[in-house]
């Protein structure tokens, strides 16, 4: 099809929104909406191509169409997977757990299905998915499988070509409404945004909007360009609308699926309409404004930028960790440095991709290139494949962080069972002992292999009733459980993975019901929390009751996941409440990555001791 000037600029706009969303989520909470721009554009272009092909050959050339699309998507994806795996070869294996499987999902266009089944998310920090973003390609490919039948079906059964196009436009619009309705139910009413966002049945609205618009555009006779003002105004309005939605919407907002996503698709269709109206009558490249040419060139790299930015963004902090001097840099410097580096390297790789694997003519004319060039290309590919394969082979099935957390969990579970055993009958007690014997044996072996800590060696309290200090925490605390219990006198640790701060009120209410709560309560639950409100903290203090001292621990979740707003909320709350103090873990951790594992969140043995000492000093000052 003829080149549409400005379409790639729209792509560039979309990729900017996506990059801003992934790099600075607080700044642009609705940047994820921009994927629908890609979907609508892609669908419009492939429908236009299919309609032209059908009108020329009077039949659907499905496998030819599918092969072409597959080549355009799969080869760049393969290049991305190989490059990322090769880069990851030098990194610690902990962060690469599940990466081979995720690479397989990416290459088979099934990432979205896998994420729906396994419940994965962009925010998994223990074993991040380097190919999470390929759900986008998976969804597009799944749609491409079905779309030709829909398009060709209408053109075939209609009495004539125009009727077919009209039917296709109307049916696509109705399908878009159906998809929005289903997405609103799942994402809005039933509060399952992942289900609505990752599944094809609830996210095909932008595709069918693209089809509908392509059908309408094919019906419209070509008229010479008469004016520029109105289309330009329409284009600006569409872009501003999308930007406003991106600034104001969030993933959890129930209206996102009923309003924001459809609005972005419709705005993209409007923008496309304006771009088509703005096309010059005769395609003369010299007449194209320089700015449009510039953005079109950048937009041509959007696919490569999309493919590489996410894995690089995840991997770069681990590369930087190899340079100890950088760790001592300010948090703000690292915060800006990583997105900047991720963007620059992605841009370079996108240029390479656009000139090679994403260029359909590259392989067709490959044999005509000089021998040295061909040799160099094959050699570089081979050099990349070797470390990529080695990364796959050497990646373990579970990370040491998970193993360490599981070990703490076993210890925690076993003690919970031990306290519960008072109420069990004889047979229950026998069964219980059978289970706990195994648990204790495992636990003992693990403890025997654990290096001794520089602790005071206190014995942990058997229950919160007999404890002087109750520590409620998430996986960070769970990992440091042994050190906390042996460093802080008569402390009881209640910690579990993936806890948010709202769980504190529930737990404190439960402990309060069983008897007396300890006088000192430590709450370390800010790591997994996006927002912490005064009302929530007030509830925690109220459930704890008068006369109890609360210690809120600030969070550190790595350089790329700042917890400033959460930590500030804790500090300002403590300033206004005499019975609340803050243990500033962030202050200790943010410039001392050697205390943490490779995820920069969970604590290694040194970190666990430091963490326990920090809390112990505070507890002693309160006693």
């Amino acid at each position, binding site marked *: 099809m003829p080149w549409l000037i400005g379409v790639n600029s729209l792509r560039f706009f979309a990729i900017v929104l996506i990059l801003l969303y992934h790099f600075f989520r607080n700044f642009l909470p609705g940047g994820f909406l921009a994927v629908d721009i890609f979907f609508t554009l892609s669908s419009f272009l492939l429908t236009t191509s299919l309609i032209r092909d059908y009108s020329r050959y009077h039949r659907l050339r499905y496998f030819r169409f599918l092969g072409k699309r597959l080549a355009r998507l799969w080869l760049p994806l393969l290049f991305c997977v190989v490059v990322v795996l090769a880069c990851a070869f030098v990194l610690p294996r902990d962060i690469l757990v599940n990466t081979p499987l995720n690479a397989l999902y990416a290459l088979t266009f099934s990432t979205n299905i896998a994420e729906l089944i396994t419940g994965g998310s962009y925010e998994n920090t223990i074993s991040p998915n380097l190919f999470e973003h390929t759900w986008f390609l998976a969804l597009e490919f799944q749609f491409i499988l079905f779309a030709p039948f829909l398009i060709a079906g209408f053109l075939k059964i209609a009495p004539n070509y125009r009727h077919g196009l009209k039917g296709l436009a109307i049916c696509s619009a109705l399908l878009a409404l159906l998809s929005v309705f289903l997405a609103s139910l799942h994402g809005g009413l*039933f509060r399952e945004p992942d289900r609505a966002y990752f599944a094809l049945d609830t996210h095909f609205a932008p595709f069918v909007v693209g089809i509908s618009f392509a059908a309408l555009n094919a019906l419209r006779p070509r008229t010479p360009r008469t004016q520029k003002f109105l289309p330009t105004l329409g284009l600006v309005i569409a872009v501003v609308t999308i930007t406003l939605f991106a600034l104001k919407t969030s993933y959890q907002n129930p209206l996102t699926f009923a309003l924001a996503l459809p609005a972005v698709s419709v705005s993209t269709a409007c923008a496309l309409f304006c771009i088509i109206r703005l096309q010059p009558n005769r395609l003369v490249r010299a007449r194209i404004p320089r700015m449009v040419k510039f953005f079109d060139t950048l937009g041509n790299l959007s696919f490569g930028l999309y493919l590489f930015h996410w894995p690089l963004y995840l991997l770069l902090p681990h590369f930087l960790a190899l340079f100890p001097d950088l760790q001592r840099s300010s948090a703000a410097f690292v915060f800006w440095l990583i997105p900047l580096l991720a963007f620059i390297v992605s841009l370079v790789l996108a240029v390479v991709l656009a000139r090679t694997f994403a260029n359909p003519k590259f392989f067709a004319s490959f044999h005509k290139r000089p021998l040295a060039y061909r040799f160099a290309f094959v050699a570089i590919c081979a050099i990349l494949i070797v470390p990529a394969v080695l990364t796959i082979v050497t990646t373990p099935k579970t990370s040491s962080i998970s193993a360490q957390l599981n070990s703490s969990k076993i210890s925690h579970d076993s003690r919970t069972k031990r306290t519960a055993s008072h109420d069990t009958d004889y047979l229950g007690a026998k069964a219980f002992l059978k289970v706990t014997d195994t648990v204790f044996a495992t636990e003992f072996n693990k403890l025997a292999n654990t290096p001794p800590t520089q602790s005071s060696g206190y014995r942990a309290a058997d229950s919160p009733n007999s404890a002087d200090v109750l520590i409620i925490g998430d996986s960070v605390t769970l990992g440091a459980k042994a050190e906390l219990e042996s460093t802080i006198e008569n402390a009881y640790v209640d910690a579990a993975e993936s806890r948010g701060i709202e769980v504190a009120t529930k737990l404190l209410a439960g402990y*309060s*019901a069983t008897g007396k709560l300890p006088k000192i309560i430590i709450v370390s639950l800010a790591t997994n929390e996006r927002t912490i409100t005064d009302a929530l903290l007030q509830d925690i203090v109220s*459930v704890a009751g008068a*006369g109890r001292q609360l210690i809120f621990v600030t969070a550190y979740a790595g350089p790329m996941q700042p917890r400033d707003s959460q930590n500030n909320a804790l500090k300002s709350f403590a300033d206004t409440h005499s019975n609340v103090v803050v243990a500033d873990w962030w202050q200790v951790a943010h410039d001392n990555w050697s205390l943490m594992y490779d995820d920069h969140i969970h604590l290694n043995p040194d970190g666990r001791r430091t963490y326990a000492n920090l809390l112990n000093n505070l507890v002693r000052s309160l006693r």
Partner: protein
Amino acid sequence: MTRERISPKVFLLAALIVLFAVCESLSLVVSYQKYQRNSSFDAATTLSTVLGIMNSSLQSGDLATYQSARARFDDAYARFRDNPYIQRKHSAILNSLDQFNQTLTHEQAFLRDLLELRAHVTLLDQQSRDDFAAYVRSLDSFRTRLSTLTSPQLDSSKKHYLELLPRLSSLATSLLACENICSQSVYEEKRVAFAATQAEFTDSFARLESDLANTLQLPALLLALSDMQAQLEES
């Protein structure tokens, strides 16, 4: 009139549409059930927070906190009670909560009065034993408050206290009068008698509060809610 045969392609299309509709309906049913479970968990968390605040404010006699939690209770309870998943799966706890709600409504005035009295008792406890002038003033204030109480539940306790308070008041007054003129041994004797009556007073009040806690069964409810939340988390 001839009967047209249905084309296999149309048949296939119809079959696909029916299949899509069935799968989508099933998916919606599953999502709805999941949503009900999640919202029941949210409702239980909110309710247990509110009950937890009521429990601790009752224990510490923090009237202002209790009243703000009490104001939130009705809404949290309505949300919990109206959840279809809880109605279906956790009818036992719902019955306990219904009972609790009735008791709470019935004893609302009683609780408020009790907490106000507790504030007075706390004030009494905080008075310096040697500052008998302030102590006697607090006792008088407590007696005035007690005599204006309207709760029928407090009638028997009220009688007991109204008998006890003048005794306590006269002992404090005589101690106050004796402070500067009596010998040390007489003063100490009076002081011991006063301390015993004061202890009797505090014990009686604690018993009253304990009876109240048993009537409301708040800790038991909190534990049941906690168990329910654990079950919801597992499912």
